């Protein structure tokens, strides 16, 4: 078997320790939970999948008439409001609705999701 060069081993260890080093902060959340995101910047600093090189390969995965407000995404659930007067929780990967509630009025703006509570305006 070919011996593993020491440099590669060293790099491997430093990558692992860098990754571990990031874990205690544990704050890089991929959620976009309200209009601005919680950093108030409309910037997701934790996105790792989409990048400059692969974003050209985006395709429409699903479409839902459940709601056309800006989406709030938390833990794989997409919260949307509709002009028809509903708010819905959709599965992020399939778009299928987990629940839909009436709001008795059109929802134009993004819901905000925090501490297990969805707040929205109509």
């Amino acid at each position, binding site marked *: 078997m070919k011996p593993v060069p020491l440099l590669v081993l060293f790099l491997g260890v430093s990558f692992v320790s860098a990754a571990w080093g990031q874990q205690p902060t544990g704050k890089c959340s991929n959620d976009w939970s309200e209009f*601005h995101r919680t950093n*108030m910047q409309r910037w997701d600093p934790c996105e790792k999948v*989409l990048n400059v090189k692969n974003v050209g390969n*985006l395709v*429409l995965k699903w479409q839902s008439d459940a709601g056309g407000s800006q989406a709030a995404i938390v833990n794989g659930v997409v919260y949307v409001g509709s002009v028809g007067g509903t708010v819905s929780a959709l599965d992020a990967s399939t778009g299928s609705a987990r629940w839909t509630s009436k709001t008795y009025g059109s929802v134009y*703006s993004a819901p905000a999701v925090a501490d297990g509570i969805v707040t*929205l305006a109509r």
Partner: protein
Amino acid sequence: MYALDAKTGAQLWSYTTDSSVYSSPTVANGVVYIGSDDFNLYALDAKTGAKVWSYPVAVSSSPAVAGGVVYAYASDSNLYALDAKTGAEPWNFNIGGESDSSPSLADGVVYVGGAKVYALKASTGALLWAYQTAFGDPSGSSPAVAHGVVYVAATVDIQHNHQGLYALDARTGAKLWSNHLLYYGDSPAVANGVVYATSNQRVYALNARTGAKLWTYKNMPSDFLIYASVSNGMLYVGDGRYGQFAFGLK
């Protein structure tokens, strides 16, 4: 205002304002901040819906909250900075005209679109810089801020169809790049070196550093209130009339 259980959708509370609410709520430290056309900015307890305070200005954009201060643009052309706990008014700044821009915050600086793009010191309201866009004004756009760059769209100029997205140096306000894609006062979103913007039934992904177009989706059914969010490899675009569109990699 409604509050629902995120798991079940059961209504927890509602709070009735005297007029429609077009702004998105912002939640910080258990308090919901929301503007209303009834000439009040409200702070409500997120668990109970009880009013914590209100401040008598009409706000139709989404407040930003950081460091115990709420920043909200009001229809009297002022950006207000209010104590998040009490609603007391530390400062306000006139941004020279009506705006739907929701202020953004990064590194102690507030960015907001009005007659110009303004950068204000968050603690005092002191003007750091102002940038005049070439076509129209940026009053409909809520800036996005990432890696020291402010991304903002100028509002529509129907006669000339000259609108664009601008990338400005967050520290100096110097223009880094701009393009002339069609935008309707759009509020861009940024993630991992890509700016997402929507306009004229289209969705764009642009290189955040250069402004180069990386991807275009041309088939949004309408141009009514479309906004993008990004999370975990998916791009979500809401179309006010036709629902939610979710994009992912092939």
